[in-house]
């Protein structure tokens, strides 16, 4: 493993990312479009909801608009990061293979991709966090941004896993969006969760802990240590899986 190779890879990946204008524009425009849509359509009606990972008796009352904005910020981060991670690992896989034949270790390439992804996750989390703060006042903004980073980490590593496993672009997008849509885009919605019949199922989905971290930080003063640790654990699990698949696919068969 060579630090110089990882750094070169990181710079090249970031350059390629910055040059794909449509992706950059999407990253900026999509959250604005989503949040504006919520701002224009959600009501100000106050509704009680339960923070899933806390005591069952703890209910919080907030306006539907506030809850929806926070939820959409979380969902947006999950969607965008998983799609980006999928693209990062999948789009130039044949050329990456050539780099491996020429001397790169598969892990050097994967680490370079992971560092690029982490930079992007932090940028997206900070951007969406600040953006939502322009719509509503978030209770603990730095912790909320940290929660968004966690959802980005979990779903980014999920995107890396799918991208390492699936060669077809369409199939990859389908698998990423399918889980992201059901999990972070629907079942983790606090308004849905509060009324769900079998919420034990929801607890086992990857977005549960990171979205709890973000939602708890946005609405309450309760600590997010446990949910954050579980998020890191789940994200690391996906990361390990993606590393194993990527290595097995990219290594030289001699």
């Amino acid at each position: 493993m060579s630090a110089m190779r990882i750094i070169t890879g990181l710079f090249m990946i970031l350059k390629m990312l910055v040059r794909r204008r449509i992706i950059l524009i999407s990253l900026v425009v999509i959250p604005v479009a989503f949040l504006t849509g919520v701002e224009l359509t959600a009501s100000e009606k106050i509704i009680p909801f339960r923070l899933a990972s806390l005591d069952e008796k703890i209910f919080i009352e907030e306006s539907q608009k506030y809850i929806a904005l926070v939820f959409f910020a979380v969902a947006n981060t999950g969607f965008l990061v998983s799609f980006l991670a999928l693209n990062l690992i999948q789009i130039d896989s044949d050329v990456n293979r050539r780099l491996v034949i020429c001397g790169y270790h598969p892990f050097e390439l994967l680490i370079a991709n992971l560092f690029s992804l982490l930079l992007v996750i932090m940028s997206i989390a900070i951007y969406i966090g600040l953006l939502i703060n322009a719509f509503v006042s978030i209770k603990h903004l730095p912790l909320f941004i940290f929660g968004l980073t966690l959802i980005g980490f979990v779903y980014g590593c999920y995107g890396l896993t799918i991208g390492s496993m699936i060669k077809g672009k369409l199939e990859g997008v389908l698998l990423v969006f399918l889980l992201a849509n059901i999990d972070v885009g629907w079942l983790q919605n606090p308004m849905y969760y509060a009324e769900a019949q079998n919420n034990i199922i929801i607890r086992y989905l990857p977005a549960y802990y990171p979205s709890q971290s973000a939602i708890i930080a946005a609405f309450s003063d309760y600590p997010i240590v446990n949910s954050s640790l579980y998020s890191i654990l789940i994200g690391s699990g996906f990361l390990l899986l993606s590393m194993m698949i990527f290595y097995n696919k990219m290594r030289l068969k001699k």
Partner: protein
Amino acid sequence: MVLRVENIAKAFGNNKVLRDVSFEMSPSSLYAIVGENGSGKTTLLRIIVGEWKSDHGSISMVGRFGYCPQKTLLFSQLTVDEHFNYFAAAYGIEKAELLSRSESLMDHFNFKKYRNERIARLSSGTLQKISLAISLLHRPNLLILDEPYNGFDWDTYLKFWDYTYQLKMEGCAILIVTHLITEKVRFDRIYNLVQGKLI
């Protein structure tokens, strides 16, 4: 000996593409493997460079090898210079050496004017030259080329052979896989891949 291929066999399901392929290359040799489309030429090269695993047999190689695949595998969003930097990192080439090597290759194959252009904006012939130059960047002592001159104009084709002879004189062994050979006299040996065997 630079390359020894022994008893290589490869099947995809019931389709036995390669059956007991063996050959050996020594320094300063220029070999060709020809065959019809789908005869298994690219499969053999992919096994030699380590991209695929054979079902049977072994490959031994001495020294550095350069590989130019049939498809021009390049990053569409990076420039020519950036490609040289990226692949130089893969080969472990120092900056000073990279500079002199890349300048010389760009001069010889006449694409210096595109050095700051992104790959997505270049013609397929130019991409083929860049792909070839990347495989030559680290002065390999075994050069493996899959259909290297597809898309070359006549001038580049002649320059390609000039460079190939120069490499051969310096001790490099060169293996070219192609479906078409017009000048047999250029090669030390030509194998025909028929029904999974070299003849």
